[in-house]
């Protein structure tokens, strides 16, 4: 019972991106995932990659609010990592023998599909933002991602007043939305 409460607290911390919670989950699970990957044709770099992907899946899941703790974090992370690694192996044609140790797994197919869809969307956004060039990229990042206010931005980007900065931001935003939505409607990140 106590462990369950602990895990609940950890997940809530994770949803808020608190370093301490992230660190705890990381510390308790990383080594077993690394062992899984390395014993199945992977390298330490692959392990880091896959584990972090799995952490993102868990993060998205707790944030969506639909995560009910019907299994331990450990089981969940393991199941996701295993599935992700199998997929990766298949893509690389390095698929040799099935990854063993089937007991204690939970089904994660849906989550992984949703995760891949999100990755696609984020990739789209990332590409759209990168293709803007400067100063648009930094300006929009400062306003929409770092959530700084317009006065502050005007000062640090060297605009004479907040209105000038606003006008510039507006032009940049229009470009970004145009690029983003043209990809978004196509439903693919291909150029």
């Amino acid at each position, binding site marked *: 019972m106590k462990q369950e409460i602990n895990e609940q607290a950890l997940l809530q911390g994770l949803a808020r991106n608190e370093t301490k919670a992230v660190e705890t989950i990381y510390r308790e699970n990383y080594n077993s995932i690394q062992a899984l990957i390395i014993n199945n*044709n992977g390298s330490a770099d692959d392990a880091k990659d896959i584990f972090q992907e799995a952490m993102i899946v868990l993060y998205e899941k707790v944030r969506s609010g639909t995560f009910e703790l019907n299994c331990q974090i450990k089981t969940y992370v393991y199941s996701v990592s295993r599935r992700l690694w199998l997929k990766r192996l298949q893509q690389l044609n390095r698929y040799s023998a099935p990854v063993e140790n089937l007991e204690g797994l939970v089904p994660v197919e849906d989550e992984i599909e949703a995760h891949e869809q999100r990755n696609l969307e984020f990739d789209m956004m990332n590409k759209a933002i990168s293709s803007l060039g400067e100063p648009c990229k930094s300006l929009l990042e400062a306003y929409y991602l770092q959530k700084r206010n317009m006065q502050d931005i005007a000062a640090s980007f060297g605009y004479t007043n907040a209105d000038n900065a606003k006008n510039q931001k507006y032009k940049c935003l229009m470009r970004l939305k145009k690029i983003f939505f043209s990809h978004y409607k196509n439903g693919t990140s291909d150029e």
Partner: protein
Amino acid sequence: MNDVQILEAVERYIRGEMNPDERLYFENLRKTNTEVDQLVVEHTLFLQQMNRFGEWQKFRSNLHDVHTNLTETGKINSAKLTGKAKVVYLWNRYKRVTAIAATIAGVTALTVSSLVTTFNPAPENAKVKELVKKVNDLDTKTKQLDTKITNADKKNNKKPIMATPVRYNGTGFLIDAKGLMITNAHVVKNSRNIFVQNNKGEQFKAIVVRLDVARDVAIIKIDDDNFKQFPSLPYGIRKTSSEIAEPIFTLGFPKNEIVYGEGYLSAKTGYNGDTLSCQIAVAANPGNSGGPVFNHNGEVIGILSAKETDAESTVFAVQSKYIYQALEELKKNSLYQHTKMSAKSSVSGLSKVQQVKKIQDYVFMVKGD
């Protein structure tokens, strides 16, 4: 209201920053004006995506920090594969390839060697200028005189190293956390003593451990007790070649502090179709030689080496796969056989500013005499 103001109103509405009166007015506007309504819907979706993207980015960078942190403090065992485990891993991965490659290699080697001897063109490199910075000769000579005089004065003084004049300047970057660095062969080949200096101005002694003049790649090693090893490198070295038009950036030391340059990959081959190198468009000056060329993921794709003398910003870089080759050669020496480079970059997805901030400590000025 103009477009800028409408958008501002929409954003405030979505964020719930309007007071009740304003809100009422705006909702009325929304009902009567379909364009505004459409904008609200569209912008809500957009802001949602943007916010999620921002949080995702933050989470990823947090994950990376946690990983580095836990590895440093030894709480997770993310050691590189060593000894038997590595052999098993490599064998499993490459056993089929190895067999086929061995057969093909034999035949090809014979054919190629005969072709090469027949068709090898005379080297014509006069139009390409290596970007090593030669410090003014006259200056050097006076300094040498100075040194001789001071040395004659204090023959017992045991610090002649610091007094030696610098004749070549270039750039180099770490390829493993323990102090192995890559630079151009032409930066270090004529030097007796080599020093590297980081952006903070700290200077370390280095030695050449491998020199490949044909490919213009040199591996040097920082050999100095004051050098503190890094836990890991923020960037990886790309194994495959890159695509034309890929945006790239460079870091180098054309002057006494680190300088950033931005450009794109313009051709997959170098001067006169040289397949060892590739062509990039970026501003480069003497002193940039040996510096890393990064793609937008922060992976090293090349070593900046030379520029064409009669064309502006036509710069050539040795392709990064030759870093792997050079390292393979070096690994035959038992001292270095456990060296491992990563192909994965941990700064991918970060903004350029963040990437450079994380990378710049790993790029050094290389000085030789």
